[in-house]
């Protein structure tokens, strides 16, 4: 069976770390197909952006543990998928080795920063109703 792909990246040969990442990109992609589309449709089709004030998020949306857990799971999937995807983009398009290394370091720092900021706000934002589900 040929491993060349007409659509996505060819699966790396062997049992390397890159093979694991190849599978995880597809797995997180399927998870995001459900979670990211649901998130977008709920907050842009069922609700209008104009009503989503900070008070609404605190009092209504993140007052429910389920939606905090949903959003954190979505954040984990999108950070892995997004930053691993950007790593591929940099490796494909940046030829100069030192620039590539520098960009990959910046990318890694950005990944850690967004992970910390996103996790912090999900975990620490006060819930007026005590976080009932």
């Amino acid at each position, binding site marked *: 069976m*040929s491993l060349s*792909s007409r659509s996505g990246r060819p699966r790396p040969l062997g049992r390397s770390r890159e093979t694991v990442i190849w599978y995880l990109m597809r797995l997180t992609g399927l998870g995001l197909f459900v979670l990211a589309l649901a998130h*977008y449709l709920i907050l842009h089709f069922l609700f209008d*952006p104009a009503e989503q*004030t900070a008070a609404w998020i605190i009092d209504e949306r993140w007052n429910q543990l389920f939606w905090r857990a949903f959003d954190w799971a979505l954040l984990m999937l999108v*950070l892995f998928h997004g930053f691993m995807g950007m790593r591929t983009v940099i490796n494909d398009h940046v030829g100069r080795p030192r620039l590539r290394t520098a960009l990959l370091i910046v990318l890694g720092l950005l990944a850690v920063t967004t992970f910390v900021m996103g996790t912090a706000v999900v975990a620490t934002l006060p819930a007026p109703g005590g976080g009932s589900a």
Partner: protein
Amino acid sequence: MLLRYRGREGMIGWLFHRISGVAIWAFVILHVIDIYLVGGNPDAYDELLAIYASTIGRILEVLLGAALLYHALNGLRIVVLDFWPPLTRYHRALWWAVWVPFLIVGVPVAYQIMAPVFGLPQFELGGGA
């Protein structure tokens, strides 16, 4: 670039996937920062929300939705082809098939987001403040 390489569906599909992916990634960074403000500086978040809810903000939201929907549907096509290689014979037809759910879902969503700009009625779906 599209014209010079005379790429067909496979190459155009790949290029759209890459552009939409980078655009969504950039928005995710912004989105983590704006949600962080809900805890750190709610007034600043509400000011940013006014931009999101403006006409330009709504146009950008529609474009974000288009990028997200295309990336999701074409990504599903990639997964299908990777795990059922015989279907690769039909990879061009599958790329065109992506646009069917894209339009069926995308057109009503774009209408819903843009309706307030034109004073048109929105679908009533249980949301609403």
